[in-house]
């Protein structure tokens, strides 16, 4: 009962906070010091966070655009809203949502209320109730799972200790941008020895804040703890915003285990430029499961820095690029301590002129003896208009290591298609089976409901693509 009252008070506070009569913030395009100050002021942030944002803005301006990876030359920083109040975001109407997105919702059988939310025209999502029930469970264990804005207000010490320490604003231009204008995202703290059985899903506490363009996520797994976080959902997310640039920082302490699962399915007008990095200490395990289906351009390479002996990293990455898409994805593992182990598995698919690339880094520092690493990247190309590339970067400064690297590129086999078709299955259904089979090693790692949706999505993406 008391928890509910706290929740109610918070809500009122939030609504008051956004009352347009009290604040005169007007959304405008472009980015400068004034916008950043206004964002911070709108959020009533402490001075340290405002200063962090302003320092980050300087970094953003000073940093050059990446000269590698996908083509970003059409990205116009002056033509983007960097902060919109929730009420501005909801200004869109259902009629404005493109038919392609609506049809996909139909095919996926997504409930009405959820559709509106996903299309950006609704405010709240029904499963809020489920979230509150789960939240009570977590709170008993001392688990914190809130949006990052709330965390800055309610858990300032924890946030201050870790925020920006794994991915400093100086890391890259887009990390700097996010650091200057971030809003929303998830903050998770799992106390020592606590194992959270049910995956924590942003899905359950979806709100306009969470789905922002520049979300900022920070996860701290204290010693011996265990958590699985699931970001987003497999339904296509329509956004009129053309740039999505998130930062995700994760700290996995001694003996802890963290798994982070993403299925990204932004609409195909979006540049999705995301920095994700975890540090894993002694005997800790970090797993990234990263699926990329949507967006116009994605550049995303989840990283694990293994800084304590016996740490483990596992990265599973899927990219499925269709017409007009360039998905540059992969992973990075840095072995900074002895007897650390890593595995990267990448599966990329391109069709209808799409381009998908694997880009990965494997680094072993001097003195990190007895490390093991295995990198495997497989690409499947569905037609001759499409393209797939592999860019493995390997830096080994230690002799006593065991490294394996395998790469394969295959066209969807005429023989495989013929075999399946000779059993009465149509060409399109046969091709879909082959693609689903190709990514099966990864899909089987997903929670059940995601795996089912993933297979349906592949089916949708495959429709009419062959023959």
């Amino acid at each position, binding site marked *: 009962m008391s928890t509910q009252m706290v929740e109610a008070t918070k809500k009122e506070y939030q609504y008051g906070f956004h009352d347009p009569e009290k604040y005169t913030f007007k959304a405008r395009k472009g980015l400068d010091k004034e916008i950043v100050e206004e964002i911070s002021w709108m959020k009533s942030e402490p001075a340290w966070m405002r200063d962090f944002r302003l320092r980050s803005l300087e970094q953003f301006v000073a940093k050059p655009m990446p000269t590698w990876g996908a083509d970003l030359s059409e990205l116009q920083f002056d033509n983007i809203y960097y902060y919109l109040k929730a009420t501005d975001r909801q200004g869109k109407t259902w009629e404005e949502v493109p038919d392609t997105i609506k049809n996909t919702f139909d095919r996926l059988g997504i409930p009405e209320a959820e559709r509106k939310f996903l299309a950006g025209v609704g405010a709240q999502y029904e499963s809020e109730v489920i979230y509150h029930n789960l939240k009570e469970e977590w709170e008993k264990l001392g688990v914190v799972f809130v949006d990052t804005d709330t965390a800055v207000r309610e858990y300032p010490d924890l946030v201050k200790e870790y925020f920006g320490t794994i991915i400093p604003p100086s890391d890259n231009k887009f990390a700097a941008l996010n650091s200057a204008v971030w809003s929303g995202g998830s903050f998770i703290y799992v106390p020592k020895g606590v194992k959270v059985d049910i995956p924590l899903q942003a899905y359950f506490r979806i709100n306009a804040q969470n789905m922002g363009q520049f979300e900022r996520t920070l996860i701290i797994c204290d010693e011996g703890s265990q958590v699985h976080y699931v970001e987003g959902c497999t339904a296509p997310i329509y956004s009129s915003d053309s740039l999505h640039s998130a930062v995700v920082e994760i700290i996995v302490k001694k003996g802890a285990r963290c798994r982070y699962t993403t299925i990204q399915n932004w609409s195909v007008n979006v540049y999705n430029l995301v920095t994700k990095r975890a540090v894993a200490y002694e005997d800790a395990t970090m797993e990234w499961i990263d699926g990329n289906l949507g967006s116009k351009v994605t550049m995303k390479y989840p990283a694990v820095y293994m800084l304590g002996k016996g740490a483990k990293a596992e990265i599973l990455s899927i990219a499925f690029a269709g017409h007009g898409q360039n998905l540059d994805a992969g992973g990075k593992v840095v072995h900074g301590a002895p007897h650390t182990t890593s595995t990267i598995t990448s599966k990329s698919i391109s069709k209808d002129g799409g381009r998908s690339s694997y880009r990965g880094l494997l680094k072993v520092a001097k003195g990190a003896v007895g490390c093991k690493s295995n990198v495997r990247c497989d690409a499947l190309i569905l037609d001759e208009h499409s393209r797939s590339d592999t860019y493995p970067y390997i830096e080994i400064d230690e002799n006593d290591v065991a490294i394996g690297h395998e790469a394969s590129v295959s066209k969807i086999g005429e023989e495989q298609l*013929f*075999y399946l078709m000779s059993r009465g299955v149509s060409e399109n*259904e046969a091709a879909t089976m*082959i693609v689903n089979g190709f990514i099966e090693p990864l899909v089987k790692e997903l929670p059940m409901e995601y795996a089912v949706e993933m297979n349906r999505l592949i089916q949708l993406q495959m429709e009419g693509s062959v023959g």
Partner: protein
Amino acid sequence: MGSELVVRDLHVNVEGKEILKGVNLQVRQGEVHALMGPNGSGKSTLAYTLAGHPKYEVTDGEVLLDGENLLEMGADERARKGIFLAFQYPTAIPGVNMANFLRTAVSRVRAAQSDNAGSARDGGELIPMREFRKELNSSLSMLKMESDFVRRYLNDGFSGGEKKRAEILQMALLRPKIAILDETDSGLDIDALRVVSEGVNALSGTNLGVLLITHYQRILNYIKPNFIHILFNGRVVVSGGPELASVLEEKGYDWVRTEFGEPVAG
């Protein structure tokens, strides 16, 4: 009235070279035909052509199933009409669970044959799991296969014998009218050959016509054909009853070569 596959004056090119030069054959439901011949005579070309592989170009002749022109149909449609090819070298499809695949294939074929167009399409309804399981288990036990087998990925990492058994398992479930068995005996040890043959015999009754393609007459000790044809240099040069097998055993293919034309290399 049983179904009938008619092959009339079939000419087929592979990569621009004529391999079949006017094949004539007629297989009815309930009959077992053995098609024998030396390497390079065109046996596998005939098998792939009948099943509808796009690489095989038909330049002349016709293939009819109950009067319908199969040559105008894709491989999937032919299968739904009741044609089945047991591959000599079944293709591995990693990640595709065998039981799920079989259920889909069986659903598509049965729906087409019962004129249930909705389920014949992609993403259409699948036959009920319980019903499918029951059929699957009885076919598995007929072929002396463990039920774990169908949890594996299709043909992926299968031994030679497992692949051939898996082909016959699919045939059992799809219940074709006419089955073409392409060198099903090759690479099988004697025990596996016996199990596979027993499977074929159990299925070939009045409802199945079999075209058994083989190089060796060894399998004919287990599967008794009603007719034997000898394919040589792209044509059926001799047709006869089961007694032809002993002639071949005695004289080998050299006899065919001297009788019917120029020697074939290798």
